[in-house]
C-alpha cells in the first residue's frame, strides 16, 4: 500500500477519502449515530432540573430567612429584657396575633427545608458509600418531616387556656 506521498503541507492522504474509499451508493458507509442522540429508548427527560431549583430555593429562602430569623432573634434575645421574659405567657401573647403565627409558620417551613437541603448536600459530599448516603438521607428526611409536622401542629393547635 503506497500511501506515502507527502504534500507540501505535510499531511498525507486521508484514509477513506477519494475515489478508492470503498463506499458508494450501493455500498454505503455504516451510519454512526451522534452522541447523546435521542432514540425511542431514551426517556422523555433524562434528568430533571431538581438541583437547579434546589440551588434557587436556597438563595430565595435565604433572603426571606435573614429577615424572619434576625427579627426573631431581636424579639426573643434582645428587646424587652432578652431571654429573661420568655415563658408560656409570652408565647401565648405573641401567638394571639395571626401575624406572628404566620411569621413563625413561614420561618419553620423555610428554615427546615433550607437546612434539610443543606444537610442533603453535605451528606452527598462526604458519605462515599451509596448505602451510607441512603441511610443518612432517610434519617434526615424522617427527622425533617417529623419536625415540620410537629411544629405546624403546635402553631395551629396552640391553646392559651390549656390549664
Amino acid at each position, binding site marked *: 500500500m503506497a500511501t506515502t506521498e507527502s504534500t507540501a503541507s505535510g499531511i498525507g492522504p486521508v484514509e477513506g477519502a477519494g475515489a478508492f474509499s470503498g463506499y458508494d451508493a450501493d455500498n454505503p458507509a455504516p451510519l454512526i449515530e451522534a452522541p447523546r442522540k435521542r432514540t425511542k429508548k431514551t426517556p422523555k427527560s433524562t434528568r430533571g432540573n431538581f438541583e437547579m431549583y434546589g440551588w434557587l430555593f436556597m438563595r430565595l429562602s435565604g433572603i426571606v430567612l435573614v429577615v424572619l*430569623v434576625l427579627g426573631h432573634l431581636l424579639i426573643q434575645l434582645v428587646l424587652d*429584657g432578652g431571654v429573661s421574659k420568655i415563658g408560656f405567657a409570652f408565647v401565648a401573647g405573641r401567638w394571639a396575633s395571626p401575624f406572628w403565627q404566620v411569621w413563625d409558620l413561614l420561618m419553620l417551613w423555610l428554615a427546615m427545608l433550607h437546612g434539610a437541603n443543606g444537610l442533603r448536600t453535605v451528606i452527598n459530599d462526604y458519605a462515599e458509600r451509596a448505602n451510607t448516603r441512603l441511610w443518612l438521607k432517610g434519617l434526615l428526611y424522617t427527622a425533617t418531616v417529623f419536625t415540620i409536622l410537629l411544629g405546624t401542629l403546635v402553631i395551629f393547635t396552640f391553646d392559651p387556656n390549656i390549664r
Partner: protein
Amino acid sequence: MPAGTLYRGREGMWSWVAHRVTGVLIFFFLFVHVLDTALVRVSPEAYDKVVATYKTPIVAVLEYGLVAAILFHALNGLRVIAVDFWSKGPRYQKQMLWTVVGLWVVLMIGAIYPVLGHAARELFGS
C-alpha cells in the same frame, strides 16, 4: 498558595467551610428548638421548666455562640447571593467577605450586653 485563584484556600474556601459548619450547627439547634417549643402543647409548667434552663449562664454562652453562627451564616449567605447574581460579585468576593467579617464583629459586640448581660448579673450580682 497561589494568589488570584477564586476558591482554593484563602478567603473563598474558608468562608465556604465556615458557612457549612455554621449551617449544620444551626440545623441541629433548630431541631431541638422545635421540640422544646412543642412543650407548650403539654403544659405551661413543662414549657417554663425547660425555658428556665435557657436562662442559666452556661446556656447564655451557648446562645451567644448560636447568635454568632446565625449572624455569620446570614451575612455570608447574602455575600454568596451577590457572588452568584451580581455581575461584579466574583471580582469583589474578598472585599465582601471582609465586609461580612467587619459587620459580624460589630454586631457580636452589640450582642454582648443583651445576650450575656443577665448571665453576668446572675454570676456577679447586679
